[in-house]
């Protein structure tokens, strides 16, 4: 309430606020997965300096509930990963690390790495594993990391990407892990053809075609600092998209100003409230432009929107025509606390 009053007198709106903040600590990764949206490799040198990460954490607003460390492979930071988790934990944020569990061969190494993170204040561990990861990481590795993390009291989940012919499904993985009843800790989602997947998996058959997609709950609510030191409005699955970049050469002292500017951006609010497919449909209807029939997720819809020249050229006109309406709608929903 106090914050709202202050912002009111400053003439600044206080709308969709970030609740999560992701830090892509590096785009280096021991694996070269076919579906990797960041096209990570062992040779990739994009990384953030440890001091810069800690300064960024210290600049985060109290509206943030969770800080997630991902990549690339964050465990490649070694002991520095413990330092940044501790910095976030000391500020009262819930902390999450996302890993491929590549270090899961020997139990004593798994225990040592996870114990160190436990003592640094880590709360959550997410393992990315599916048929694409399986080419590099045997099931036994994630079994070891999953159950060791559970024993330490971490909240643990496994993210799986699936296509129509995938052998490994949520149910199969749940059974192999020995989970009972339901498999809520396993999150399945459809293959999106972004990053390396666009080249290597263009023949893959998605789970099903989607006629209409939904709001993007990540844009504005979950900004990201990329390993290329760009501040992004969302998760950064399509990182080289200028409309989604809030700062091309990020400095921590500018964090809150950049996020405030983003919260007043009609395009980002449109994406958050209605999703990229809604913008595609609007452009199609008003400018008589064809849009693809098969789009397999919001990130793929964003790629089509921003990277198809015949569509992207209409975005500014769409904002001119519909931007104020969107901001009015977001403001009304903000009054009702329905954002």
């Amino acid at each position, binding site marked *: 309430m106090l914050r709202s009053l202050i912002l009111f007198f400053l003439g600044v709106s206080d709308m969709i606020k970030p609740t999560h903040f992701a830090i892509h600590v590096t785009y280096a990764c021991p694996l070269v997965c076919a579906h990797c949206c960041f096209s990570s490799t062992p040779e990739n040198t994009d990384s953030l300096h440890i001091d810069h990460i800690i300064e960024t954490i210290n600049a985060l607003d109290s509206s943030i509930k969770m800080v997630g460390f991902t990549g690339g492979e964050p465990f490649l930071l070694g002991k520095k990963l413990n330092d940044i988790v501790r910095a976030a934990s000391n500020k009262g944020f819930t902390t999450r690390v996302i890993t491929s569990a590549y270090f899961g061969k020997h139990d004593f190494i798994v225990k040592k790495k996870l114990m160190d993170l436990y003592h640094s204040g880590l709360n959550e561990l997410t393992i990315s594993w599916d048929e694409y990861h399986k080419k590099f990481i045997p099931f036994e590795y994630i079994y070891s990391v999953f159950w060791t993390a559970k024993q330490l009291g971490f909240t643990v989940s496994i993210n799986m990407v699936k296509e129509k012919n995938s052998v490994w499904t949520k149910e199969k993985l749940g059974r192999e892990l020995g989970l009972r009843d339901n498999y809520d*800790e396993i999150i399945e989602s459809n293959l999106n053809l972004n990053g390396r997947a666009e080249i290597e998996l263009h023949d893959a058959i998605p789970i099903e075609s989607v006629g209409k997609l939904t709001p993007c709950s*990540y844009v504005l609510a979950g900004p990201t600092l990329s390993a290329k030191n760009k501040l992004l409005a969302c998760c950064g699955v399509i990182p080289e998209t200028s409309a989604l970049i809030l700062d091309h050469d990020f400095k921590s002292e500018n964090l809150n100003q950049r996020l405030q500017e983003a919260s007043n951006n009609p395009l980002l609010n449109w994406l958050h409230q209605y999703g990229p497919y809604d913008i595609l449909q609007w452009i199609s209807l008003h400018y008589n432009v064809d849009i693809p029939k098969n789009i397999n997720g919001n990130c793929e819809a964003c790629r089509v929107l921003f990277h198809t020249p015949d569509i992207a050229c209409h975005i500014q006109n769409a904002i001119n025509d519909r931007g104020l309406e969107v901001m009015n709608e977001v403001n009304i929903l903000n009054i009702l606390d329905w954002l």
Partner: protein
Amino acid sequence: MNTLNQSFQRLRHALQDENIFRSFQSDPIALSAKYGVELTPEFAKKLKLGLQNINTLEHAQLLGKSGFRMECGPEQPDDGTGRGGGYALPGIGMPIVD
């Protein structure tokens, strides 16, 4: 922008009055227009649906965003993820258990 923000602040304040809230509930376009805020008929229709059986602004606020998303938000088709079309990120933002 400041003028528009002030319009919304005045509207927010006014909606705390139960009578004004009822007017908003029955005709969001007309009530908002009194405060200088234009709404589209499509949005007003969704809003009216979402505001059914709600008595006060406080009641609406207690419902949280599920009030809008479930009652009058955009369609939520099954996209195969059960989670609204998002990519399985390398982690952040994705609730661990819905």
